[in-house]
């Protein structure tokens, strides 16, 4: 078989799987939902297995359009894992929804989105980048409005689509400028063009490309869609948005920054530093006033993207390794938090989303409260939880890169962030119990939340050594 096809095997598995399952769901209708869901998880696992072959060999396929290196493989593991969790979480949420059943298209859309995200992190060319990004986005627009009878969900989908289209426009404009002034769309050749010397057109292109990417990863000042979309979208979809696409967008940004625009590091570093600090501070301050737990987590994701960008700002191999480590810990914490949010149901089984309804959770559901508290303290970056190690890694990279003011400002701003995470703990532990949640977690949910909490807790230190090796190998692939 063709070597290029072998290298892109994970995407092929996902695409073929998605198309086949689409046919199954068209044939089987509503009744096939369960089958398609589990089959989709199997396809994701299959794609993960396919990563072990030539897909992580470090080669490049299709004449440089597609990279099959360790960096892409690492990001894809995270993406596939988060996608699988989003599929697993869905049935129970939709089962109690108001007539909006889970349809078999849901897992298929996630598969397509995952294929797009795989293309994003493997992109070696501006066109691959754009195609992957659009495939991911189009699937995501539909997913956001998946609860057809829910006004907020429809609004979320529309908002996401309009603003997403605008961002794609900005990105395309940047791509066209870069292409126009460098004469190529291949990352390696673009790097040569940036290395050749200053050019106003190239600098403008860089700014627009980063603006478009900042939208996709929801970094300030391109974050305004995030809270509304996160709030309106069905909770499993929100969990998905907060995890996998972030990894893909940030992975893509890292690759563009290092591979395509590496010689222009001093130029994009200013943008990244601004976006990082603005995201950390705005994400923290705006979260303070929130009453909806999904909006809170939306601002939390903005805040965390800021910390990830600090690692990127260092622009070194160590910084990229820190970014990957942070992302790993971040998606575990976020998915764990969203599983807890999924348990929030009133006595009639309807989902509730206010932070106040968490009151006294430590008495009605002590284990759940302990898990949520672990995630919150970890997101706040308090040792000995793994969120601290993640922050330490990115700040370490920044200090090694000589970015002392950035490190100091970032750390101080992280204290603001601690305030709103503490508020969740306060509501769960200090307030008098409110109405207890109905229903119990399914065994799969319990297992996932336990695993996530254990990974974040000091038990997770045992994984630090192995994770360090993997992230370093992945980061090395870019340099």
């Amino acid at each position, binding site marked *: 078989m063709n070597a290029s096809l072998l290298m892109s095997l994970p995407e092929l598995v996902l695409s073929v799987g998605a198309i086949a399952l689409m046919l199954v769901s068209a044939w089987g209708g509503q009744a096939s939902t369960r089958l398609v869901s589990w089959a989709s998880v199997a396809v994701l696992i299959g794609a993960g297995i396919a990563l072990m072959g030539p897909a992580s060999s470090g080669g490049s396929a299709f004449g440089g359009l597609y990279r099959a290196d360790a960096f892409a493989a690492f990001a894809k593991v995270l993406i596939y894992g988060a996608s699988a969790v989003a599929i697993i979480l869905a049935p129970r949420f939709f089962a109690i929804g108001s007539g909006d059943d889970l349809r078999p298209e849901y897992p298929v859309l996630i598969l397509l989105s995952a294929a797009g995200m795989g293309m994003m992190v493997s992109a070696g060319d501006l066109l691959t980048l754009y195609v992957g990004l659009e495939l991911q986005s189009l699937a995501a627009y539909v997913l956001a409005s998946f609860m057809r009878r829910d006004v907020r969900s429809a609004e979320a989908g529309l908002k996401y689509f309009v603003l997403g289209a605008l961002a794609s426009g900005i990105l395309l404009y940047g791509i066209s400028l870069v292409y126009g002034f460098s004469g190529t769309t291949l990352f390696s050749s673009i790097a040569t063009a940036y290395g050749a010397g200053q050019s106003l057109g190239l600098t403008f292109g860089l700014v627009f490309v980063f603006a478009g990417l900042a939208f996709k990863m929801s970094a300030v000042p391109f974050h305004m869609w995030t809270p509304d979309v996160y709030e309106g979208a069905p909770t499993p979809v929100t969990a998905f948005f907060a995890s996998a696409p972030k990894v893909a967008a940030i992975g893509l940004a890292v690759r563009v920054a290092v591979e395509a625009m590496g010689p222009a590091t001093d130029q994009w570093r200013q943008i990244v530093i601004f976006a990082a600090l603005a995201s950390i501070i705005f994400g923290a301050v705006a979260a303070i006033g929130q009453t909806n737990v999904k909006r809170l987590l939306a601002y939390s994701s903005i805040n965390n993207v800021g910390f990830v960008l600090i690692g990127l700002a260092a622009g070194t191999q160590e910084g990229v390794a820190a970014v990957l480590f942070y992302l790993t810990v971040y998606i575990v914490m976020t998915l764990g938090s969203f599983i807890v949010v999924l348990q929030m149901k009133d006595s009639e089984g309807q989902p509730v989303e206010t932070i106040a309804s968490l009151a006294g959770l430590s008495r009605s559901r*002590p284990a759940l409260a302990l898990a949520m508290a672990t995630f919150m303290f970890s997101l706040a970056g308090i*040792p000995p939880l793994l969120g601290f*190690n993640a922050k330490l890694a990115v700040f*370490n990279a920044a200090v090694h890169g000589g970015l002392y003011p950035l490190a100091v400002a970032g*750390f101080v701003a992280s204290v603001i962030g601690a305030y709103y995470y503490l508020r969740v703990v306060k509501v769960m532990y*200090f307030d008098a119990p409110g109405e207890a949640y109905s229903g119990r977690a399914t065994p799969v949910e319990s297992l996932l939340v336990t695993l996530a909490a254990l990974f974040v807790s000091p038990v997770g*230190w045992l994984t*630090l*050594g192995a994770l360090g090796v993997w992230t370093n190998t992945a980061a090395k692939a870019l340099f």
Partner: protein
Amino acid sequence: MLSIMLAIPAIAAIACLFASAQGARWIALIATLVDLVLGIGLWANFDIGGPQWQFVENAGSLGVFSWKLGIDGFALMLVMLSVFLMPICIGASWVAITERVQEYMAAFLITEMLMIGTFTAQDMFLFYIFFEAGLIPMYLIIGIWGGANRIYASYKFFLYTLLGSVLMLVAMLWMVSFSGTSDIPTLLNTDFPVRVQPWLWLAFFASFAVKMPMWPFHTWLPDAHVQAPTAGSVILAGVLLKLGGYGFLRFSLPMFPEASAQFGWLILSLSAIAVIYTSLVALVQSDMKKLIAYSSVAHMAIVTIGLFAFNRQGLEGAMIVMLSHGLVSAALFLCVGVIYDRLHTREISRYGGLAINMPRYALLFMLFTMASVGLPGTSGFVGEFLSLAGTYRVSTLATLLCTTGIILGAAYMLYLYRRVVFGEIVHDDVRAMPDLSLREIALLAPIAAVVLWMGVYPESFLSPMRGDVATLQARIARAAPAGDSLPTAGKALATPAEHAEVRP
């Protein structure tokens, strides 16, 4: 050995979560007692005059940091203080805590583990992890089992101390990237560039000054103390405040001697202000716990001036003040807790005349009041005298100002004692208060014994630290300030003994 001391409370904490309320109490008590026994074993096997770092363990690297433990004399004494106070804390909460006992005991055991970890960590990041992680259980202890205004106090405690600490973390990152290791014994002998030292020193200062707490960073302390449950106050005053002093001793002084000398004036003036200001504030408090909290700030200022005196008396005095304050303020908070449990108020004016119906209480309270004042024969005197004697050789003015604080200290403590214990009983409910129960005596008597022991024969406590004091003094000698007291040595009548010793 040290890892076992860390593991026992951690395992017991998990066990508590699955036990009944009474079971959790017993598990916690047994676990803390086992740790106390291990601690005594540690002290008994500590080789005085042996290598600086003993009981060293190295379990290898975990990412950026490694699991390295070990103690010197300073750490040994502070570990002893922690393990000694913990069973007392558990006993103090035996009947006072009736709600969510399992979680309470688990939080205390985790706190114990983290404190021992902080004192024994030999890796800078490991130290930071233990140092900061202590915030989580204390936040929960204050927030869940605290008084009426507990939520405000818990937030203030958490955010205030966190803000101080993150700056320290940036400095640690720089130091590790400069020296290439996070191993504390290596860093202790690393000479950082004099140009950078002030920045690093200030970053560490931000953290330790808040933890200590030094004036004007002390405002979280009265709130936290007043709202915390009795045992929470005990552990806060007894051990957590010592983290700041330990930090200055372990990091600021030996790692940045030049910067420490350069900022000596800052420490001396803040301490002098703290002693006088907080003593005056303590004088007008109507809440007993707040009064003792302010007195803690004043005592901690005596620790800092002793540390930054750069000489042997100062360093030894500072350590003894820390140990003594750990015991005495813990005991004073317990004394407040005893009468709070009976009347459920901390208002001084609601009491009076306790000597009449609670004589045993009055006696023990008297002892601890005197120890707090610094009466000779108690531990307070030894520490304060050494510390001020050391400071005198550096700055006579600072010593003069701080000594006034001792007088003020006597004023507010005796005034408190007079109002609570002496006089006529004016409230009927006070008349009905029973004297100390056996459990309460069992909590207070050991502390009283150690306070007297430290006051009469401090050599037991000084000898394990002597070698470390000498090492530290040699390390910082090159930066020691000249001093303005100009002592002239008189003619010795006999060769002075190196230190006091009982000869059989």
